[in-house]
């Protein structure tokens, strides 16, 4: 276990699914050299199969102190081949149909974007941005027979030592979030590095810094003056994703409040559209309690009263969302 842990909070009530984080990450790290298919940061629609396809059912993680078997996703069927468009033809030769995929993809990131679940008018979805969770008990690290994965003492960032990795992919199978990716060009596994070269200079990870919705806070869990400590530890308003996987993630989510359901006459009811069971599966049993807290604090703010939690989540000043030193 590392001495300190740098962590991220993502407020799902503010994510608009614009993928600015995805693009920031991709441009910075994964737009070349065998990484083209990788999304160290992705934003998927929940409910949905996600990226890679059905990652929540792909195994890995812990059963007590024993690693569970996991599967290695396939590029064509689970991640999705980067789609090639017929730009040359469409734009210069004027084919019909006009613009189309030149290959025949079976799956891609965001294949099921905005589909969600439920029947109109009670359909629902929210966006779920995902990066490596830089877990306290990383299954990827435990699964590597070469000790090529390590967790940094000073900030808990989990990294794959590229000089030790021999591309066996036990880490890919072991990560229940499927956030370790195999680079077929270099025969090595790679993953989100929490933008450690930026962090070391006091600059937040690109996904967080570029987020136009101001949903991402970054700070040390034990730093009482930092936003992450306040939201996660003091207010207990953010929860890890799929805590049942046993890896103790260090990305925390402020769970999404739900619109109410309509009844048959079109009247608004007290029931929420996103089933609580669905949220409990994603964020654990405390999610209902957190949603009540959010509602109460939001009501306070609505009445013109003070709410430290709401002020934190509103994030009036972007620089106050990050405290990484």
């Amino acid at each position: 276990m590392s001495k300190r842990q740098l962590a991220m909070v993502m407020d799902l009530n503010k994510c608009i699914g614009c993928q600015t984080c995805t693009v920031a990450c991709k441009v910075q790290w994964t737009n070349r050299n065998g990484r083209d298919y990788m999304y160290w940061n992705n934003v998927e629609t929940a409910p949905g199969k996600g990226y890679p396809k059905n990652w929540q059912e792909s195994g890995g993680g812990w059963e007590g102190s024993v690693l569970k078997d996991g599967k290695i996703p396939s590029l064509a069927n689970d991640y999705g081949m980067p789609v090639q468009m017929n730009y040359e033809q469409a734009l210069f030769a004027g084919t019909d149909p006009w613009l189309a995929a030149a290959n025949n993809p079976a799956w891609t990131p965001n294949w099921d974007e905005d589909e969600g679940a439920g029947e109109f008018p009670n359909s629902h979805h929210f966006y779920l941005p995902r990066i490596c969770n830089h877990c306290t008990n990383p299954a990827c690290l435990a699964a590597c027979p070469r000790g090529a994965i390590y967790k940094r003492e000073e900030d808990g960032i989990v990294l794959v030592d590229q000089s030790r990795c021999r591309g066996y992919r036990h880490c890919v199978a072991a990560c229940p979030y499927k956030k370790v990716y195999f680079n077929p060009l270099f025969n090595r596994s790679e993953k989100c590095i929490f933008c450690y070269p930026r962090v070391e200079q006091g600059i937040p990870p690109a996904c967080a810094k570029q987020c136009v919705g101001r949903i991402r806070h970054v700070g040390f869990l034990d730093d009482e003056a930092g936003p992450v400590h306040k939201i996660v530890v003091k207010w207990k308003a953010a929860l890890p994703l799929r805590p049942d996987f046993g890896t103790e993630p260090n990305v925390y989510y402020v769970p999404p409040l739900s619109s109410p359901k309509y009844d048959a006459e079109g009247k608004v009811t007290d029931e929420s559209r996103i089933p609580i069971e669905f949220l409990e599966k994603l964020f654990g049993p405390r999610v209902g309690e957190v949603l009540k807290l959010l509602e109460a604090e939001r009501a306070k703010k609505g009445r013109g009263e003070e709410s430290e939690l709401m002020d934190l989540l509103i994030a009036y000043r972007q620089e106050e969302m990050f405290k990484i030193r």
Partner: protein
Amino acid sequence: MNRKVGLSVAGAAVLGVLMGMAVPVEGARRAKGDPVASLAGNGEVVTAARVAGEMPTEPGDGRFENAVPLTVRLYPQTATEPRAEKGVVREAALRAIHADTWIAFLVEWADPDRSDVKQGTTDTFADAAALQFPLKYGEAADRLPYVGMGEPGRPVNIWFWRNGGGTGPASLRARGFGTLEPVAGGEVKTAGKWENGRVRVLFTRSFSASSPEEVKFAPRQIGLVPVALAVWGGEKGERGGLKTLSGWRFVKFDGGKVSPAYVRSLAWNPKIRGDAKTGKALMTRHGCAGCHAYPGNPIPTKIGPGLAGIGGIHRPAYLFESLKDPSAVIVPHGNYYSMKDGQPISIMAPFSGPERDAYHIVEFLRSLR
């Protein structure tokens, strides 16, 4: 091949009966003229035929027809995690040829399901093969390194081929599971070919090594070099520790020098002849079955290394040592040891039962192959 082994064992047994006492099988053969006869009789020696000309560049080189192949049994790696429960390739043929300045090996096995590195995939693995040599051998070496990629203090040099390449230099060094690293400036060359359901892989290098981390060959000084084999069936997901491996075998150079003392150091000379059946019963009585998985043990335990195939992978002297002094070689897996005064200590207690029982147990372990 199997027939040959069967005959020699039977012959040794007859000798033992004639002498009417607990005579070690290998020891009985020592009296013969050829110092490596005992090893050869156990099917452990491949003779490197002397040929002329340049180093071969492809597996189909006709000069390998001058070499008598040694059939090498391969066993699933079950000593450390992850364990190869079944193993894909269970037998390979090893041939060797040499000239004045170079040596070449040909490893061949049946593989109906060729597995390449498929370009741009994330979930496929390629077939691969490796040869392993102790960095130090001969009379200067106190004993052979642990056959599973060496051990601290007894490093090995590994020559690695993977179908489709892409894994960096072919020459690697290791001193235990998980320690594999490329040798800088190594000059091993490999070439593989899949044809008619068989894979043939060529490994070549000059006698002299350009790096001190590579094995050297000097047949005029030591004409008998330990070698071990590993093969990966890529189509079944084998890679890294998921593989099949052989025990130590020996390359004998045509016309090379072999000192009888060196060969003697490789032999197993038990003080008491053990009995495998008695040994099997003792495995339960002495508690071995509680931690080690092996055929016939109903306990599905992974506390200690698996013992399936251990008699084929390890030499009896090593098995005996492991029993009496488990900390002498510790398989590098976190669950197998604890640290004491900065030194790893095996969690297995040294065998403290009667000496006779230890020999019975070793005899049982030898039968696991």
